């Protein structure tokens, strides 16, 4: 799993590198006529997403201690927080004043956030499988590999959001 995360991280870095590479060649960024994405709402939801690592961490600890109730509650809460974040992204995309086909700025914005969204969906599916397994009593104090793997991946998706957020949301405001 660590190896997979390493190579996934390289995908994100390649895209983020592309973002700054293209940006370096542009006179104004975002291009004229496009507003940088507003920060207010996304900051709140960023805390929701990053916060979801906490219940995930509970679930992991509960699994190690063999408390199956804690595992289920932690996974479910993390799932809900991830889903709320995802829903907000979908809603927000409708309100942005640019699409992926207008300019390279839009293409990059949607490629990076979209890739993160796809990872989040994979995380939600994996989390779901783990919840079903937990409900059917497939784990105990010694058998909880699925929880560990899901949790590791979940933390990765959260952590990489910090990079994505800094790039596509913060950087147009900070670096002018």
């Amino acid at each position, binding site marked *: 799993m660590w190896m997979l995360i390493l190579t*996934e991280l390289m995908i994100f870095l390649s895209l983020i590198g592309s973002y700054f590479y293209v940006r370096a060649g542009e006179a104004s960024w975002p291009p004229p006529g496009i507003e940088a994405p507003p920060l207010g709402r996304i900051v709140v939801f960023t805390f929701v997403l990053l916060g979801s690592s906490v219940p995930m961490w509970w679930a992991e600890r509960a699994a190690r201690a063999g408390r199956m109730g804690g595992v289920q509650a932690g996974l479910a809460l993390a799932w809900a927080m991830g889903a709320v974040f995802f829903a907000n992204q979908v809603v927000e995309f409708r309100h942005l004043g640019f699409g992926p086909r207008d300019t390279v700025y839009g293409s990059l914005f949607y490629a990076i956030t979209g890739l993160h969204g796809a990872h989040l969906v994979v995380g939600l599916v994996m989390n779901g499988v783990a919840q079903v397994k937990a409900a059917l009593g497939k784990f105990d104090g010694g058998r909880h590999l699925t929880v560990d793997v899901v949790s590791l991946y979940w933390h990765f998706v959260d952590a990489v959001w910090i990079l994505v957020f800094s790039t596509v949301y913060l950087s147009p405001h900070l670096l002018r």
Partner: protein
Amino acid sequence: MTTTLEPAGQAEPAEEQVEVVWHDAPGLVGFLTSVDHKRIGMRYISTAFVFFFLAGVQALVMRVQLAGPNESVLSPRTYNELFTMHGTSMIFLFNTPVLAGFGNYLLPLQLGTRDMAFPRLNAFSYWVFALAGTFMYLGEFIGRAPDAGWFAYVPLSARAFSPGVNLDFWGLGVIFVGVSTTVGAVNFIVTIFKMRAPGMSLSRMPVFSWSILVMAFMVLFAVPALTVGTALLEADRLFGTAFYDPSRGGDVLLYQHLFWFWGHPEVYILLVPAMGMISMIVPTFARARLAGYVWVVTSLVGIGFVSFGLWVHHMFATGIPPQALGFFSAASMTISIPSGTLIFAWIATLWRGSVRWSTPLLFCLGFASIFVMGGITGVMVAALPFDLQAHDTYFVVAHFHYVLVGGVVFPIFAGLYFWLPKMTGRLLSEGLGTWSFWTMFTGFHLGFFPQHILGLMGMPRRVYTYDAGLGWDTLNLLSTIGGFLFGLGTLLTVVNIVRSRKRGAPAGPNPWEADSLEWSVPSPAPHYNFLTVPVVDGRHPLWSVPAGGASGALQRATPLTAGLEAEPEPEIMEVPEETYVPFLTAVGLAIVVVGLLVEQAVVGVVGLVVALAALGVWLWRTDGDLQ
């Protein structure tokens, strides 16, 4: 499954009992479901060789067209398709997977374990490769082969200039085959870190296994850039995004950066395992220990690092700032230091030993001489002023064929002659092998040496014909003759292999008196590899005392070890039974790719459902395996 290791030195289990536990279905069912790393490895090798011969035929047809001035065997369009598919096949569908095949077959045997860390993932990786290769060739069969060169630069490869579906076969196929390479790399790394035989510390690991480790890490860092580069290209082509469209602020050079950030390390992703093979074969036939084991391993790792600082040297002619060019030019020359170290280590090994001549060694020496010449022209094109002259001429074509054919294909043939007896249990004929080598060696130089001169005379690459009276005629004709001679040489090896299946002498466990663990088991290796897992006490296990050790053979399981010193862990790993799941997951992905190609969302969704369902079953069954 938590089971404690039995103490070392227990009695060996009976072979018949073990055979029952490690059954592997025969026939078509076995073909689709096997998770045995040896079957998968051999399948990788044979599938890759199919693509090798397809690429060879394409090359020869091109050489016929170029044999004389103003020939009209091929239309310009067909010529473009042929050189695109030739390059694509050789890089993506032959060199990379054939080395993965050797890695798959040999790694568990060299490490003294019974399978890869993720056997089903291994099967999946093979199926993705086979389906991706088939997918890329679909275009050829329906007369719409990709035609923008094997690196498909934008804007030529953009929708506006390549309107047909041709390029989509290439772009989607490259992304698809990248999945296989990445998954394979993860598997190699985990296998090396978790499954070495007890006592095989990293400093005792065979050099070939080391080279696979370096290669796998390079893949993890490099392939994502290719995936992103081609995914953005396909997004532009299929969904109308603007990544490479300057009229909407996009940047065509971005594609070249992303492509070569993978593309240059890729050369070393191929070279490093090839050099690993050489480092196993040379000491065996020199009958001496490899000179400077630590230096050799350090050089391989060094090549891995430096290769990431070179990519811009493919782009010297694109108008990049001179400071950057200076840096990349210097870095490009630096790589000759670790490469040179390796060459001297092999020479020193031969010098110290008492050499026994045989076909694998011949191919090693052929490799070394050709590769050194490719290295010298490499230093030449790394020098900026020279590169600006030679760029996009036949000089570059000659250079990279010296590096890739000399540096990778020759070692692969050496590896075939060396390890095939282990895989089939039959020795190849030395006589035919020697003939094959000299035909290939002569044909190679006759084919490619004149191309250096042609390049210096100004012949550009990728032209489908040329005028008479430029002084290029004789050299081109020689090159064509050489190409056919080389092809004949490879066919001699095929004849040799086919002949050996019936008439080859039995190989026995260790025909070459080599030192690594794969030679301690019968040839062909049994499904379970090792009846008792060996305990390793040095770099040359078979040249010191053979040792018996921990088992697990009767539980279809293999021990796990941890840390640099490979200390046994209290738990063992169960090796999964045969399963259709990896095949079905790969088929699902293939359907997704076809859906993107024909731009039908329904097909894509069907593929996604198949893949996810298969993946669900896979995850569901996982907890029992690795605990």
